[in-house]
């Protein structure tokens, strides 16, 4: 089964008419973003497949820019009259008077897709998807009687997009994503503990050829079981070692958001005016790469119709580049970087990360632990958040252990860690050679969620504040 790109279903001449209508009040830019998304999800809880859900979202968002003002309207009506009405609404929203005649000539279509989808999820029987849930449930419950509850979720989506604008951009992409999540609850003398694992890729159902959901389920269950004997996490500042593939969220929060050009332009980032400066330990080279096939944040084109790119943001500790969308790049008269993204057709695009990661260092990860007399080893991180203006950020640890005399010892209860971005980047003093990407993430900004990936090798931060209750 192949996927048809949206240009076969949408008449380009109607798009051109709508773009002309969008600029009829004198605006200098008009853009149409069309999305057709189908999704399937299934959820298991308490041993039962509680529901299977199908969803369909289809519509267009029309953006018109006049001077510094953006007008935006969206509609679920993709007919010629629907698109023209939305274009008129967007034009009115952006209108600053004026008016005039304009034309649109599309460049040859860009069809860029990072998917190498072998098995389109909609071609797989839903019963097969439901079976995966049962397998995971059985596996998690099989390892220990202390596992008292399991929930699991499967979801896939196929999102086809088409972007056309008055500069002549005409591009399509098909983004297929598949995700599986499992969480387990263990009960013991000290109360309940939870374990969670997820697996998600920008690929089709073939994801399950190389990944066993039972194994994933057992990992989640073991995490909960181990934590039954966890002690309260320490409080205060300690050295922290973060396992490869689990700590990319640290960079996402400590500096990723702060390198987004919209926040920089408003002076809401501690990294404003710091290009060319040493902002991190020289060990750190940070990359944002939308082209990484199959990773959760991969995109063929961004949601403004530009081909995704690999952008080096920090090189050997020196800040080299911010991430840009169309508007911010236009204001600075420089190229965008393929980072203009939006949650759906009903949202305005803005600067967003894709897959953000730190390249390998040279240390053996074993040595990093051995060289840490005491501290905390974080094997799995939860989410995080950042105040980009002050640089203060937090991230949660969902699986962590004490390090005593250079060895990993007791498991710790959950908590947040807090640090200041620029300080923490300087404080990275050991970097491993075991790079791995982490699990699928959803990054929230200004009310919009987009899929992102992250990754890093095992590393040490010489001092981070850990939010436990133990002395």
């Amino acid at each position, binding site marked *: 089964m192949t996927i048809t790109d949206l240009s076969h279903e949408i008449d380009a001449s109607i798009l051109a008419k709508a773009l002309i209508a969008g600029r009829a009040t004198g605006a200098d830019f008009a853009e149409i973003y069309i999305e057709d998304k189908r999704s399937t999800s299934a959820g298991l809880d308490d041993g039962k497949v509680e*529901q299977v859900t199908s969803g369909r979202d289809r519509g267009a968002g029309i953006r018109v820019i006049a001077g510094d003002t953006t007008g935006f309207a969206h509609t679920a009506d993709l007919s010629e009259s629907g698109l023209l009405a939305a274009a008129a609404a967007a034009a009115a929203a952006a209108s600053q008077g004026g008016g005039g005649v304009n034309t649109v000539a599309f460049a040859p279509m860009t069809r860029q897709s990072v998917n190498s989808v072998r098995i389109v999820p909609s071609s797989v029987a839903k019963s097969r998807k439901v079976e995966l849930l049962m397998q995971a449930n059985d596996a998690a419950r099989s390892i220990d009687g202390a596992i008292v509850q399991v929930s699991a979720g499967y979801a896939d989506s196929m999102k086809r997009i088409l972007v056309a604008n008055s500069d002549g951009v005409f591009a399509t992409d098909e983004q297929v994503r598949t995700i599986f999540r499992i969480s387990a609850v263990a009960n013991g003398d000290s109360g309940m503990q939870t374990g969670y694992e997820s697996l998600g890729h920008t690929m089709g159902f073939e994801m399950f050829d190389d990944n066993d959901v039972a194994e994933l389920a057992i990992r989640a269950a073991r995490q909960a079981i181990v934590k039954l004997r966890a002690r309260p996490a320490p409080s205060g500042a300690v050295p922290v070692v973060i396992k490869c593939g689990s700590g990319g969220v640290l960079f996402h929060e400590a500096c990723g958001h702060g390198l987004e050009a919209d926040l920089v332009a408003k*002076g809401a980032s501690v990294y404003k005016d710091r290009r060319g400066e040493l902002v991190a330990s020289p060990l750190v080279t940070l990359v944002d790469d939308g082209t990484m096939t199959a990773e959760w944040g991969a995109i063929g084109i961004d949601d403004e119709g530009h081909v995704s790119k690999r952008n080096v943001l920090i090189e050997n500790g020196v800040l080299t580049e911010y991430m840009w969308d169309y508007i911010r790049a236009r204001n600075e008269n420089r190229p965008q970087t393929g980072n203009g993204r939006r949650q759906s057709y009903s949202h305005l695009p803005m600067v967003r990360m894709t897959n953000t990661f730190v390249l390998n260092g040279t240390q053996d990860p074993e040595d990093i632990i051995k060289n840490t007399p005491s501290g905390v080893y974080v094997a799995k991180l*939860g989410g995080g958040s950042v105040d980009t*203006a002050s640089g*203060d950020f937090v991230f*949660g640890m969902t699986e962590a252990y004490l390090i005593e005399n250079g060895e990993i010892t007791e498991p710790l209860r959950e908590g947040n860690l807090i640090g200041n971005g620029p300080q923490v980047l300087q404080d990275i003093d050991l970097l491993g050679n075991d790079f791995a990407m982490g699990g699928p993430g959803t990054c929230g900004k200004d009310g919009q969620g987009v899929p992102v990936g992250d990754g890093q090798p095992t590393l040490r931060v010489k001092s981070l*504040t850990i939010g436990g209750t133990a002395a």
Partner: protein
Amino acid sequence: MSGSSLDSELQLVADRIVAQAKKGEQIEAYVSRGQETEVRVYEGNVEHFVSAQSQGINVRVISNGRTGTSYAGTLDESALAEVLAEARENAELGSVDEWAGLAEPDGVAVVEQELWNEKLESYPTARKIELTKELERLTLGIDPRVRIDSADYSDASIESAFATTKGIRVSGRENGCYTSVSTLADDNGETQTGWGFAVGKYPDEFDLSKAARDGVERATRLLGAVKPATKRTTVVLDPFVTASFLSIIGSTLNGEAVSKGRSIFANRLGEAVASPVFTLIDDPTDSRAYSATDIDGEGLAARRNVLMQDGVLQMFIHSSYSARRAQTVSTGNAIRGSGTPGVGCLALQVGLGTKSQQELIADIDDGVLIQSVQGIHSGVNAISGDFSTGASGLMIRNGATAEPVREFTIASTLQRMLLDIVAVGADIDWLPMSSVGVSLVINDITMSGV
């Protein structure tokens, strides 16, 4: 949704889906159509103006104890047929669940709410833009150290209809609006952030001056903040922070979580789980609440439920599904999502104390006022009870606020925090959330810093 059953166009769409039920099949249809306006102002100009329309349908089918759901973001005829067909197909794949089923009408009377304001509907667009600019101007006029990240205005209206094969039929409409400002304050190369907002039934009710003052105060009072020493201390949660805390506590009283063995308060009914000064009530029928509503996500009357009285756990909240599992009745707490309704609090409030925040602080020799928390989603686990968040605020010394502090965490467990509440303020603030804001004093919290 207001609890009338007008034969609106949407009601007819919902009715038509439900009328297609086959023998032994239960169907629920929820149909909605909405409009929203969003204005963002920056440096005196409109940065963006969004005018949007949306529509959608959610269908749930239960057949032989199996549930399937489907939704579409359009009301096209072809989509309507497809949505029902998909939900039916999906229902064949679910497990048989003896408790699956739609809500039965329970005869509880609906407390009518005024959820629609005609003045908002006819409010001129130009004035929406003007008031957003005004908020930015007011904020910039207070303190030269303050800049604006953005000033925003947002309104939304939604019309919806609901029908089930159990004979529940309701349709109605509601609208709402708010405005907010995000601030940045600079001093000595340091930047801190703040925010302020105003709510009202329509924009003329906004208190823009208060929103501006709050935005300025929150950002400027953190300037020069230092990282505090690690210690156990007493915290005063600012009303906004308390609202987040109450939402988490509310989630632990979810009857479905209790049945499924995920609540820290299972088997604790009738026991003192909180301090005697703490009374927790979910009351969506109180029209002062921002999230006041007349019906829940299954079309049953929303109602006042006392969850904890003087610290004693009184009840769990239920949808019709969780109630059947627990052999009790729905408490009108079904929450709509894209699939089967969940269970949640609709409008939490607490029994008030007698003191203002300043008076509460005057009673504390050594503590910290928590202005904001960071990372509730990553550092609080409602199943284990672990609580750990990033925080910023002001130290309290000898009964008064002192130097600002930031980049620290506060930690305890939910179970202990409830028992360690020493006072509830009288400073109620009806925030644009589903929990009320009020100052809350909690002892024995670990503050982790240097």
